[in-house]
Structure formats: structure tokens, C-alpha cells
């Protein structure tokens, strides 16, 4: 055990703990719309962080991440509305199916690298949308699946209120966050960074690069599936727009805006973009302009995303 090595992680954990206490403590006094958006922010944060494992850590810029998010969302929607599945069962099934889908896709997409990887995952995203749209008996086609009730949570009961659902999501977010942290500090997490920095070197060091990437895709897919499941509960419905290219792009943008390869950055990015879209649109119909400006400004002046800015300011 190396004490020196734990210093930075401990600082990070302390910072995150403070942030979580604020997120938890502030909710009851905030307007309900803010809490609603925070719930959405948390769900997207789980998804964006899972994409960061690929994009930021392993250097796999996937434009098809919404496919796995959607597998989770549709799984939950179908199990809950047609088979009255419990919260736990729906979550578990969503995670497992998203991971399986991810493994299947991994075989196809991992043949490509760099910009070709981006393009082939883009193709995955387009095909997944087509499937969600056309496989009507399963997905409900363009209207999707509606009427997903809020979950019944162990020890809590029906999390139907804005606050109780928020805390449910927050609790799962904390679990995910803990797992993410363990993952990025773990030997496996380090191998992902190694692959990002130099695949050829990793190979001659004895690493099966394909396998590590595939495992990363599966793990990220599983987390995306979990986020998708919560998203289904959050909206009460799932439709093809959960799978479309714009949604995939949104995940990527959250990671880039926040700061790729930092884990914390995408969390910030997820919150920032969610609030920018849904809060600014309350005040001006030109919110798309505001979002556009935010993207351009971030790209030009915040090379390491918002987290990079925060660090620089310190």
C-alpha cells in the first residue's frame, strides 16, 4: 500500500463527498423544477461518465453510446409495463441486456480505430434508431412505450414524488460513482489509459488490447443501461428519440464540455448541458443559440473542458 499514491484520490473523494452532501441537502429547499432537472442531470451524469470510460480513458470516441442507454430504457419500459417487473428486476435486466448488446457490438466496432471507430459507432447509432423505430411489436414504434410508473423502492415505497425519486436516483448515482472511482484507480483502469496513450506498446507489453477494449465497452454499456433504465422511470416513457444520433452526440458533448478522461468533468458536463437546455429555454426561445455559443466557447477556450477551467482557476 502506497500512502503517497492515495493523496490525490483522497482529495477527490473528499471533494465529491462535499458535492454529494450539497446535492442531497439542497434538494428540499430548491424549487421543484430545479430538483427535476437535477434528477435528469444525475441520470445523464451516470451515462456521460460511462462514455468517459471509453472516450476519455480508453480513447474510444463512441458516437453510438445511446444505443446501450436505449437498450436499458426499453428493457425497463417493456418489463415494467408488460410484465410488472419490480424496480430491482428491471434495473438488473437493463444492466445485463445493455452489457450483452455492448459485447455483441464490440466485436463489430473494435476492428476500427480512431476516426474510423467514430464512424462505425455512428453507423451503429443510426441502425439502432432504425430498429427502435421499425420493430413496432417490441418498441411501440414512433410513439414508443408509455405509462411507466415511478419505481417502488425497497424501504422507501413508491418513489412517486419529485424528491423521493430524486433521492432514489442520487443513491444509485453514489453507487455508480463509487464503482467508477474504483474502476479508474484499478489496474484495469490504468490499462485503459495505457491503451489510449499507445496501443502498440500495450501489445508488446503482453496486453490483449482487443480484450481490454471489449471489456471496457461492456462495462460502459452496463452503466449506460442502468442510466437508461432510470431515464425510463424518470420520463415515464421511452421512444426512438432516446436512441437517435442527437442523443448520442449529446453524451459525447457532455464528456467533451466537462473534460474527457477526468470522470468528474463529464458529471459537470452532464449537469451543465441539462441545465443549459432546460433552464435557458424557460427564459428565451433562442436557447439553441446559447447552447451553440457555449459549445464554441468551450471548444476554443477550455481545451480540457469545464473541469480544466476550474482547475486552472484554482
Amino acid at each position, binding site marked *: 500500500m502506497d500512502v503517497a499514491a492515495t493523496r490525490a484520490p483522497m482529495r477527490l473523494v473528499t471533494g465529491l463527498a462535499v458535492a454529494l452532501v450539497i446535492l442531497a441537502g439542497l434538494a428540499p429547499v430548491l424549487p421543484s423544477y430545479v430538483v427535476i432537472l437535477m434528477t435528469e442531470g444525475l441520470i445523464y451524469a451516470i451515462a456521460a461518465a460511462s462514455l468517459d470510460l471509453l472516450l476519455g480513458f480508453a480513447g474510444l470516441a463512441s458516437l453510438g453510446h445511446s444505443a446501450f442507454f436505449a437498450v436499458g430504457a426499453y428493457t425497463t419500459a417493456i418489463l415494467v409495463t408488460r410484465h410488472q417487473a419490480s424496480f430491482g428486476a428491471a434495473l438488473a435486466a437493463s444492466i445485463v441486456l445493455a452489457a450483452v448488446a455492448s459485447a455483441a457490438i464490440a466485436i463489430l466496432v473494435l476492428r476500427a480505430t480512431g476516426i474510423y471507430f467514430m464512424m462505425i459507432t455512428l453507423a451503429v447509432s443510426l441502425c439502432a434508431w432504425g430498429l427502435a423505430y421499425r420493430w413496432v411489436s417490441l418498441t411501440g414504434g414512433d*410513439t414508443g412505450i408509455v405509462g411507466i410508473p415511478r419505481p417502488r423502492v425497497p424501504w422507501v415505497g413508491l418513489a412517486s414524488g419529485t424528491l423521493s425519486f430524486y433521492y432514489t436516483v442520487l443513491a444509485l448515482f453514489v453507487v455508480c460513482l463509487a464503482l467508477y472511482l474504483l474502476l479508474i484507480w484499478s489496474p484495469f483502469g490504468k490499462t485503459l489509459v495505457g491503451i489510449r496513450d499507445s496501443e502498440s506498446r500495450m501489445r508488446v507489453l503482453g496486453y490483449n488490447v482487443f480484450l481490454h477494449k471489449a471489456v471496457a465497452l461492456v462495462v460502459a454499456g452496463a452503466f449506460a443501461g442502468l442510466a437508461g433504465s432510470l431515464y425510463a422511470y424518470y420520463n415515464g416513457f421511452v421512444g426512438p428519440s432516446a436512441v437517435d444520433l442527437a442523443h448520442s452526440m449529446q453524451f459525447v458533448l457532455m464528456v467533451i464540455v466537462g473534460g474527457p478522461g477526468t470522470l468528474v468533468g463529464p458529471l459537470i458536463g452532464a449537469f451543465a448541458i441539462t441545465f443549459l437546455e432546460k433552464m435557458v429555454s424557460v427564459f428565451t426561445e433562442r436557447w439553441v443559440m446559447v447552447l451553440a455559443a457555449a459549445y464554441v466557447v468551450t471548444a476554443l477556450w477550455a481545451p480540457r473542458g469545464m473541469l480544466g477551467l476550474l482547475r486552472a482557476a484554482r
Partner: protein
Amino acid sequence: MKKHLVLALVALVAAVVLVPAAPAAEKPPIKIGFIAPKTGNFAQFGLDMLNGFKLYLSEIDYMIAGRKVELIEEDEGATPANAVTKARKLIEHDKVQLMGGLLMAAAAYAVAPVVQEAGVPLVITVAASDDLTQRKASKYLARVSLTGGEHGHVAGDYAYRKLGWRKVAVIAMDYGWGHEVTGGFQRVFEELGGQVIQKIWTPVITTDFGPYVASLKPEADGILDVVTGAASIRLIGELRKAGVLDKKKVLAAGTATDETLLTALGDTALGVLTFLPWSQALDTPENKRFVERIKQVTKKDYVGFSGAINYGAAMWIAEAIRQVGGDVENKEKFFQTLRATEIKSSPRGPIKIDKYGHIIQNIYIRRVDKVGNLYQNTVIETYPSVSQFWKYNPEEYLKQPIYSRDNPPCRHC
């Protein structure tokens, strides 16, 4: 940089917190939430919805039964998820007493349960999917727009009886509206003795209709066209270029030649027949007055369908509020009254609501003509007081599954 971002976010949050804290008058205003797309592909549609709705409110100075009306507009955005979030905001944060609007069927389906759970009346002013007021009808929901099925029924009847068609080829968009118009058409048309001999489902985003038009069966007496929006320009243009429009009549679901498309359609659409509960050329005093007023707002020659029906929706809602004396806080009474409210005359004609929450209104058969320099949808036939169940028994009707790609099946293809 960072400070600015933080400040901006703080300001946003503060604004949301502080706005409802404004001093309350003796009689607090009636709050109406309105969800319509203001960005994305349907932005213009949403803008027209709001123009129509607000035109009526401004005519009555935003006062109904002595109470001020506060309209809170929210952007439906491009996805149903957006609409749900905004509906939650309107319910929980703004505490609206009534919610209106909604363009996309998927958004309406998604929002309906949320609104239902909160017990807030929802008046859908555009979204047309049948089941919102049929198999998935809910207590607090009313719709004053239209459904695909009801329009299909009318078209089927008109095609068989008036146009004398016996064999029809259908080209329709592959989503709810296309399925339901086609389904309704096929049911009535085939029960009368006609045959649908071809159904072509086109993806919602279709850049080239060439292959579809070229594969239309030549033995069809006429074509049913259920393609809307900008794609309609392409399809009708293609039908014209391929010579189909010179040989056969095309009967199209109304929004295919919506007034907002007429300029872009130009001469290509001349002679196309459509069916819809309104036309800018509808020759009634109420409509003429409305068209004149809305033109002052939009500064355009052409007035879109969505503006007109939303104006009517606002009229109808206001009438209901008047009838309860402004007491919208009594939700049960308000909603019962809402459903019982009738308007004898609006720009599109009389409005009343059936017991499933859907509007009963006139449906007009229109033809695209050129009058002077301008195009118009000339009304050539009126189907008065059409029910969403046509002439069928509602209970029997609802036992059947909703119209879809394969229901009714294409027996003569």
C-alpha cells in the same frame, strides 16, 4: 470565465426561485401552461400554434370571468422527453390550472399520464393520434384538434360516394398519423365496396419519392396521399412530374396542402383534394374575421391550420372558464364543464366534445385552386359534426385494435 458561468447559473436558479414570489393580487391569475415546439424542425408550427392561441387571449385582454390569465409558454423541443420535463415544470413549479398545446403525438402520449397523475386538465390542441381519446382516453384529457382515423373515415366515404373510386393506391408516412388516416379510410372505403389495392409506407424522412411514385399501381382509380410537412412538397412535386396528377385525382390528408406550404407547392398542387376541419378560404364571417386578425400578427398572406385550430381551442377553453365563473380551482367541476362546453361558431365552425374527450366538428373537403396570384384550399364539400367513431357504435369500435400498418390488412394488394 468560471466566475461568469457560475454567476449565470446562480442567476438562472434565482430567477426561477424568485418569479413565483411576486406579490399575489386578490384574485390570483388563472395560470395556463402551453407546450409547443419553438425550436427544431417544428418551430414554425409551434409558433403558429402560439400565435393563434394568444390572438384570442389578446382579444379578450387576457381576462376571463374577471380573472387575469397568465399564459406560460414552454418549448416542446425536438423530443417527447423534453415535453415531459416541461410538463412537470408547469405542474410542479408554476402550478398551472390547465395545460394546453402539444404537437407531436409521442409527446402527447408521454405527457398525458403525467398530467393525469397530477389531476391537471390537459387540452391537446394539435396532436392527432387516435388513442389519446379512445383506448387510452383519460379523465382529465380533452382534445380540440383532430384524429387520423376520423379523417380517414370521411375520406373513405368521399372517395367512394363522390369521387366514384373503386380501387385506390395509398402512399402514406410510416407513423401514427399515416397509419390511422389510412386505416380509417380503408375501413369505410372497403365496407362500402371499394378496394385498397396498394399501401406504400414511406419513412418519415424521405428525400426522394421517385421510387415510390414510379411503383404506384396504374390500375388505381385514385391516390390517397398521407404525407405531411415539407415532404409533401416533394411527393406532390414528384406526382406532378411523373404525370400522375394529370391522369388521376389525388386525395390528401389536409396538412399536405396546409396554407403554409402553398407557396412552396405552387402550381404543382393545383387540383389536389384534401380533407381537414378548416381552410383559410372557409367562407364564414367568423373565419374571415379571424384570418384578417391573424394576418396582422404574422404579416403573411397565408395562415396555417395550426394557428386557426389553436385560436378555436383558446375560445373554447375561455368559454368553459366563463361557465364556471372563473373558479378553476374546483378541478372536478371545471373539468366536467370543460367537457360539456359547446361553441356554436368558431373560425372552423361549431365545437363540442364527446364523452371520450374528443372534439366533434365539421370536416371540409377542399381543393387547391389559384385565385389571382394566391393559392387557396377551396371548400367544396362539408361533412358536418363528424364523430371520431364515424357512424359506428363507440363501444364496438373500441373493441377493435387501433389502426396500424397492418390493420385493416391489405386484402386486395
